[in-house]
């Protein structure tokens, strides 16, 4: 189908977004054409600003518009606990929970034996430096419960153990609201292993 160039460029841009196929891209592009010019300008500015003004916190690696980030600057947070996650999105998920009051460290990835991604390829060296400089008592390893996440957690715990800092791994278990009978064997056995007294 033929579109005037400005529209086909806009459609191309939308298809670069995750989960957006050609049909949705066309729909979005035509929606933009019908928007008020001010709204379109604001939208365009937000896109550019998000890209330009956000950097990675030089301490924890989280995305931020000020360095260090607001979490690292917050002195009311527990300085003795660091929660290690793979992705900035994980920090946001943890913060939504509002129950964790320590600090974070974002690895920007995970060790992947299958892809040849080693500890040097993710934000591990910075974490080790932090442990030397800051008074950390506990490291919570909140990487994903898959091979890469497990490998990453194991690696970090092996590395840190000799220093005497407590390393803990978040529990694996049944999803809240799920049914026991539909759980797979691996999840169930992990859940059983992580049982606790009531």
């Amino acid at each position, binding site marked *: 189908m033929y579109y005037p160039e400005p529209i086909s460029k806009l459609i191309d841009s939308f298809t670069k977004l995750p989960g957006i196929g050609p049909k949705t891209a066309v729909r979005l592009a035509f929606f933009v054409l019908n928007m008020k010019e001010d709204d379109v300008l604001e939208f365009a500015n937000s896109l550019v600003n998000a890209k330009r003004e956000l950097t990675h916190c030089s301490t924890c690696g989280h995305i931020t518009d000020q360095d260090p980030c607001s979490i690292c600057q917050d002195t009311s947070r527990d300085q003795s606990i660091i929660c290690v996650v793979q992705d900035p999105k994980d920090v946001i998920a943890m913060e939504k929970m509002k129950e964790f009051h320590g600090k974070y460290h974002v690895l920007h990835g995970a060790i992947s*034996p*299958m892809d*040849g991604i*080693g500890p040097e390829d993710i934000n591990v060296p910075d974490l080790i430096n932090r442990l030397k400089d800051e008074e950390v008592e506990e490291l919570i390893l909140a990487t994903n419960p*898959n091979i890469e996440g497990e*490998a990453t957690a194991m690696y970090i715990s092996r590395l840190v153990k000799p220093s005497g800092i407590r390393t803990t791994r978040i529990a694996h278990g049944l999803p809240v609201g799920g049914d026991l009978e*539909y759980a797979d064997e*691996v999840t169930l056995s992990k859940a059983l292993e992580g049982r606790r007294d009531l």
Partner: protein
Amino acid sequence: MLEKIKGLVLKTQDYGETHKIVTIYSKKIGKFSAIARGAKKTKSRMAAVTQPFIYAEFFVYIQTGLSTIQQGEIIHSFRSIREDIIKTAYAAYIVELTDKLSDDKDPDTFIFEQLFETMKWIEKNDDVNIPTMMYELKLYGKGGFAPTLDRCSNCGGNTPPFVFSIAEGGILCHHCRSMDREAIQLSELLAKLLRIFATVNLQRVGNISVKKENQQLLRQLLDAYYDYYGGYYIKSKKFLKQIDLLK
């Protein structure tokens, strides 16, 4: 056609936001890839069964294009491998080599059994260098570049002492050893070990003890041989080298 296939998951790739493409090695049809719809969602029953190293029974809708996994039941999860970073690294290497050196839908009972036995070995033992090399040597045959180990690769003779020549693709006898100045000296024991590794089942060799320095020599020899003939870059090998330092 819906088929019941037992196999070991070699690798998975994300497909879109929620699906996975799973590559499986089976006894019945060899290596194949199939899509597992929804398997990336944490609540999906397919999430656990479609992880690398899982041995399971899959119900697969086999098609000429992309096949579809309808369901899977875990038979053996090789859990102690995934809970040990060194074992994970070795298993990743074994599995990646299998994926790279075998063709789609080309069943091979012997390779399948050796793959499974090697995984079981890694699961149970800490010393995994020798079984890894044994499996590699057998896979080289699958890749079409098995070294000649039962006789001189030049004259077919059998006069010791032997050397191993990368360029000639196997051992050279006493008379032919001058053909390759860079050939590696092999004691009679090592020449014999290589021959056994390449042909005998892991189950039959069992706990064979090989001195550390001989293990290292064999390792270097296989690495150099693979670099020369193998062709595919093995990503997990880099990781294996890094992780060796943790031991």
